[in-house]
Structure formats: C-alpha cells, structure tokens
C-alpha cells in the first residue's frame, strides 16, 4: 500500500529561534522509527548539513531568470535604458566612469531595457544562480541547495528542493518528509509551507518572537496549512511564554510542550550533532515529547 508522504515543515517567522537544531533532532528521532526524507528549504542560509554531515551523491546547476547585458560596441549612450529600468540596475557613465553597464545584482531580468534600446545593444542571458544536491545522511536522504550569495530567492529553488524530496519519498515509500524552512513570511516561506501537512512554528519567548508568530500564523491560515507552535528556550521569559500560550489558546492554535533553554543545544551544534543524538538533556526530552505530538498530528505509525 502506498499513501502520499506527510510533509512536516519547520518555520519561525523570526530568524534564529532554533529551526535547524529542531529539524535535525526531529530527523534523528523520526529516522529511528520510520524511513524519512529530509529537505533543507532555507536555501540562502542552509545549515542543516552542518549537523547531518551529508555525503553528496548528486549536484545539479540551478538557473532562475535572466540578466541583461549591454554590448559596448553597439551602445550609443543615449540613456533610454536607464529611464526604462525600474530596478536601478543600469550603471551610468556619469557615476561609474565606465561605459553603460548592468548592475547584475540589481537587475530583475524583466528585459524592459531591451525594448527601450533604440540600437539593439542589450540582450538577455540566463546565468546559473545556485546548485541543488542529493545527499545521504545517517538519517535518510537529504535534498538541499545553495543559492549563490545575493541571488534572487524567488522560492523556485525552495519549491524544487521540496518537490524532489517528496518525489523521493513517494518512490521509496517513505512516510515522512522533514522540511527545514527559511525565516520570514515572503516568497521562500510561502514556497516552503505551501502543501505541507503540518507547519511546526518555532518561537522564542520575546516580544519580537510573539509579534512575528502572529504574522506567520496569518500566513499558515492564509494557505490552509495546520500549525503547531513550539516555544523554544521557554524558561528565558516566563511572562512572554505565558503570553504566547494564551495567544495560541485564544486563537485555537495547537501548542506543544515548552523546550527549555539548554546549553547542551549549542554544544551539540558545535559538535555537529542533533541534540537528541548528542546527550540526554532537558531540551532533548522536550523534543521527544514534541515528536510524539507531531506523529499523532500527522497520523504516523512509528515503532516506539
């Protein structure tokens, strides 16, 4: 019997709340009970491989959109391209001292300049802006990527990594895909969260954390993704933890146990291991309870 694999995505709104450390721990726990696939969807700051030590099996180039190029020989320096460009991507001789050129970092690839240029001096090309990989880890195959510094993260690379991971899970009959998501609420997060069976939202007990949680919950509601909130480092502020829990209850959002602040989590990161594999500790215990909640929510049968 083959059913569609469940997708668990770990997101946070605010960055640095512990998404990746949790993703690694959950991958470790889940892999002890069932075959899984892991995806790192934080493609512009991918960190999961620092803990999972993947062996890379495949590497693929990734392109996404176009960049303009000006032919110096043909350019008559009329400046119409600069007037047309809404992305401030035309390098102007007055400012640079060089002939007209393209600021490739700023260029959106829209090709408006191509149509405004009276002498056909501008063409578009499609550069490689990243790579994606299939790797093997002790906990299952890892699908991950690297977006070159400064490239446009339109969410396409995130979608690609996620789709490949899901296809692999379907092919192998693996019941769960664990997706480590990016921070924020924009394009990459929308791509990471859409279609997920459960979004685990990791929040820290601060005013900023609470503020960002409200926005990321609006997002999961908007896209119809069920949410489960986990407060990380819960004991750092009893007051803010309680406020976040009250907010979740009022809003009817599922809450997991609080994960306590635990210096072993950073130690485990430095050692390059999931906390649950590194040491029995207060945080590891809480994460085991969290994993049990996730399993129940997703209707997964794991051996105990």
């Amino acid at each position, binding site marked *: 019997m083959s059913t569609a694999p469940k997708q668990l995505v770990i997101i946070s709104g605010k960055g640095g709340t512990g998404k990746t450390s949790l993703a690694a721990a959950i991958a470790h726990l889940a892999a002890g009970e069932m075959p899984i696939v892991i995806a790192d969807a934080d493609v512009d700051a991918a960190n999961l491989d620092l803990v999972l030590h993947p062996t890379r099996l495949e590497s693929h180039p990734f392109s996404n*959109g176009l960049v303009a190029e000006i032919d110096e020989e043909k350019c008559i320096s009329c400046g119409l391209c600069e007037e047309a460009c809404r992305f*401030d991507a035309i390098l102007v001789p007055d400012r640079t001292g060089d002939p007209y050129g393209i600021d490739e*970092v700023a260029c959106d690839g829209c090709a*408006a300049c191509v149509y405004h240029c009276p002498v056909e001096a501008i063409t578009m090309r499609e550069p490689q802006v990243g790579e994606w990989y299939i790797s093997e880890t002790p906990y299952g195959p890892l699908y991950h990527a690297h977006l070159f510094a400064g490239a446009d993260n339109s969410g396409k690379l995130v979608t690609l990594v996620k789709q490949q991971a899901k296809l692999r899970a379907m092919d192998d009959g693996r019941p769960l895909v664990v997706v480590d998501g990016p*921070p924020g609420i*924009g394009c990459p997060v929308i791509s990471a969260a859409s279609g997920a069976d459960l979004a685990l939202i990791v929040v820290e007990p601060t005013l*900023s954390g609470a503020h960002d949680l409200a926005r990321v919950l609006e*997002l999961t509601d908007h896209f119809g993704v069920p949410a489960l909130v986990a407060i990380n480092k819960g004991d750092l502020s009893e007051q803010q933890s309680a406020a976040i829990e009250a907010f979740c209850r009022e809003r009817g959002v599922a809450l997991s146990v609080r994960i306590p602040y635990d210096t072993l989590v950073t130690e485990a990161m430095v050692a390059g291991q999931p906390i649950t594999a590194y040491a029995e500790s207060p945080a590891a215990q809480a994460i085991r309870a969290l994993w049990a909640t996730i399993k129940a929510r997703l209707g997964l049968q794991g051996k105990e």
Partner: protein
Amino acid sequence: MRITVASGKGGTGKTTVAVNLALSLAAAGSPLTFLDCDVEEPNAHIFLRPQIEREETTGILIPEVDDDLCTYCGRCAEVCVFHAIAVIGKQVLVFPELCHGCGSCAYNCPEKAITEVLRPTAKLRWGKATWEGAPIAFGEGVLDVGQAMATPVIRELKRKGLPNEGEAIAILDAPPGNSCPVVETMRGSDFVLLVTEPTPFGLHDLRLAVQVARDELGLPAGVVINRDGVGDDSVERFCAEAGLPILMRIPLDRRIAEAYAQGETIVARLPEYRERFLALYRRIEEEVGR
C-alpha cells in the same frame, strides 16, 4: 553615513545592535534616521516605540487593459518574461502575483491600451522615536501577509526614507538571509555591520554575508560578535583569515536576553553600553575612512 546592519543567519542580534547604536548616537546629538528593512518581520518598532505619523500603501504597478482599445495582438504577453499577462482569444488575462511591475507590457502595447495601476502589497509607516529628548526619524516597511515580494518594498522604503548624504546618519536594519532583499538593503551603504554569534551556524551564514557585502557589492564590512563566549572560536579565526575587523563583542548576558524579551533596549537597562556603542561608531568611521 549609511550603515546597514545585517547577519546572514537570523536571530543573531541585528535589530538589537541597530537600535542600540541608533539610540546611543541620537543621545550624543547626531541627527539620525532609522529604516527597518526587514519588511517580512519588522521588529525595531518594538524597541524604538516610534509615534507613527503617517502610513502609506505601496506595491507593484500592474497592467490594466482597456478592452475598447485592445486588439488582442498578443504583444504584451510576448514581452512579459514573467508570464504575468496572457492573451487567449479575445481576452487578456493578468496574473498579479507574477507581475514584477517592470512596465514592459504598457510600453510595448501598440494601441496604448494598457495603463498601470498600483496593486498594494505593503505599508510604509513613517514617524518619530524619541530617546532622552533626542529625535530619531523612523521608517518601516510592512509586507502584507500572503504577499511574496519583499524587495520592491525595501526599494521604495529606501527611496522615500533615506536622508540626503551628510544630513543625518542612516541606520538600516536588514532582513536575515543572503538573497535579494538583503542585497537591496545593503546597496548604497557606506558600511555593512555584520552581527554574528560564535557558532557553526553563525559562521556559515557570516561567510555568505561577507560574500554579498564585500565581493558582490564591494562595500567595507566589520563584525559584531554577539553572545560572545557561547560556542567556539571559529568565527574569530575566520575574521582573522578574511581580514574582517571585529568591532565589538557583546557577551552572553542573561540581563540583555531578559531586556530583549520584554522589548527593552540594552542602553536603557545597562547604561554603560552607551559609550560602547559610540565607540563602535567611531570604529566604523575609521574603517570607512581607510
């Protein structure tokens, strides 16, 4: 002077450093503008508590087709690289979420049948924060939930909110990550201040942020190590190798974490930090002057 505070990794203390630097400078008498460019999750207002005086809607200019003028020639669809407009029989379909607002369809329409209308995607909020009697001009972008594109909002926030060169110090709080929105925030800055934590994740993302700031944009950069003492010394070794100056260290301090949790600033809780943030600014000036 325009300073962007960025980090690569999220949650390292960008907003903390940006806000405390701004408050220290304002209290010392410098005219100051603060722009929160983390439009997906803007948090600086929690600490600066500005009085918002004005809010405006911003967004993307999308095409609107005048059916009386349109001949369904299909030129608009042909020039749109984002496939945001399609002509099917005697119907023009516009897909607003795909449109980047470049204006090519309107420009290329032979019948001048396309006008551009604003599709709201975000709010820009303007106001003033006050700290010990000193004013700070404040601006933030707030992306509407469900909207995908942060970069145009940041561009607009900067276009409208940046003071003229020499009139005031501008501090820009960047979003996390290393892609487009971060680049857009950094562009045109005199200095990029990278806040990191001394852990493997912090280091990995710092490396990428340095690539964006120094290699892609050619901007001078320096590092603030936050939660100093928490992990290992790999960030320090990297900075030495890469010739990146470490301009400040903020130790792991429960009082700072608690203040942060309540939306309080370091300089309010621990006044001795005012001088340290002013010293940070002097170090930045030195680095820019090199």
